[in-house]
């Protein structure tokens, strides 16, 4: 039976001082994995210069690279430029949309975007009160709606959601509970549970835990570098 091997990492937080440090750790990745997913926070300050460092570290890898941005990548209002730089380097950057590829005879669909916060069922913000609060929650809801639509349109053997923010609390274990609403939202998990997916990969929670599960039973993995302690980790899915 053929396998699809997914390498994943997040929160690589590249800056000029780390130029050339990450790429050597990807050496031989084509023998371990069929695709590399990068779950946001590619940079520290979200500058164009840092975007160029990331692009150079990921350029011309022997396997496809799919990435989303994270909150750090928005800090300097240069997210569009960073996205363009990454795409020019051959990286597929997803902004609440899907991409489909064929790997080892199986089709893989990846829906991705940065996601956002709001908290988890029973302990979360809602679209009520001041416009600022409503805008915060609306942003997450609209992202979840776009993911739902993108997943609905996928007819592939495997389906993965690539996010920066977390869809569940499980993978935040280790973070202070007070900041959970800034680390993710159950709305992201709900969208995936409604449409179905094999795996959700995220980062953002450096003090969190690798493994979790959505209420609907989808596997969730927090692949932030401080959590996995390596340049990437590999998840295998059996063939169609």
């Amino acid at each position: 039976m053929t396998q699809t091997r997914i390498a994943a990492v997040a929160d690589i937080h590249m800056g000029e001082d780390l130029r050339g440090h990450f790429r050597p750790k990807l050496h031989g990745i084509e023998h371990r994995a069929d695709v590399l997913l990068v779950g946001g926070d590619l940079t520290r300050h979200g500058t164009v210069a840092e975007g160029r460092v990331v692009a150079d570290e990921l350029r011309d890898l022997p396997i496809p690279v799919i990435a989303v941005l994270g909150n750090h990548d928005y800090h300097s209002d240069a997210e569009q430029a960073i996205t363009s730089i990454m795409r020019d380097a051959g990286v597929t950057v997803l902004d609440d949309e899907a991409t489909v590829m064929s790997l080892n005879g199986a089709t893989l669909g990846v829906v991705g975007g940065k996601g956002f916060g709001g908290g988890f069922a029973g302990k979360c913000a809602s679209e009520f009160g001041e416009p600022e609060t409503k805008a915060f929650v609306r942003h997450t809801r609209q992202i979840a709606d776009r993911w739902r639509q993108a997943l609905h349109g996928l007819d592939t053997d495997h389906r993965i959601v690539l996010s920066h923010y977390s869809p569940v609390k499980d993978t935040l274990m280790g973070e202070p509970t007070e900041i959970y609403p800034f680390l993710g939202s159950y709305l992201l998990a709900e969208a995936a549970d409604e449409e179905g997916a094999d795996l959700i990969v995220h980062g953002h929670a450096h003090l969190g835990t690798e493994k979790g599960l959505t209420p609907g039973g989808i596997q969730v993995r927090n692949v932030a570098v401080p959590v996995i302690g390596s340049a990437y980790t590999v998840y295998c899915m059996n063939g169609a």
Partner: protein
Amino acid sequence: MDAPHYVAARVQRALAEDERTVELGIRVDVRGSQIFLRGRVSAPERRLLIEDVAREAAPGLSVHNEITLVEVREPGEEEHL
């Protein structure tokens, strides 16, 4: 003298918003005249930068830098889902 609670909050905010650090994951504890910084970063220079910014945000307090470096190992065994 500010309450330790506010000093810790001020340092934490400085670490997040100062362009030199932009660091959200450092825990800051203030005990008396001492500040303890705990967390993990990717490069030794960042450890020192974080200490500098903390010192500037809370002058006169002694800073204990207990930040460690993230060790990025070779990928381990793959997981079969």
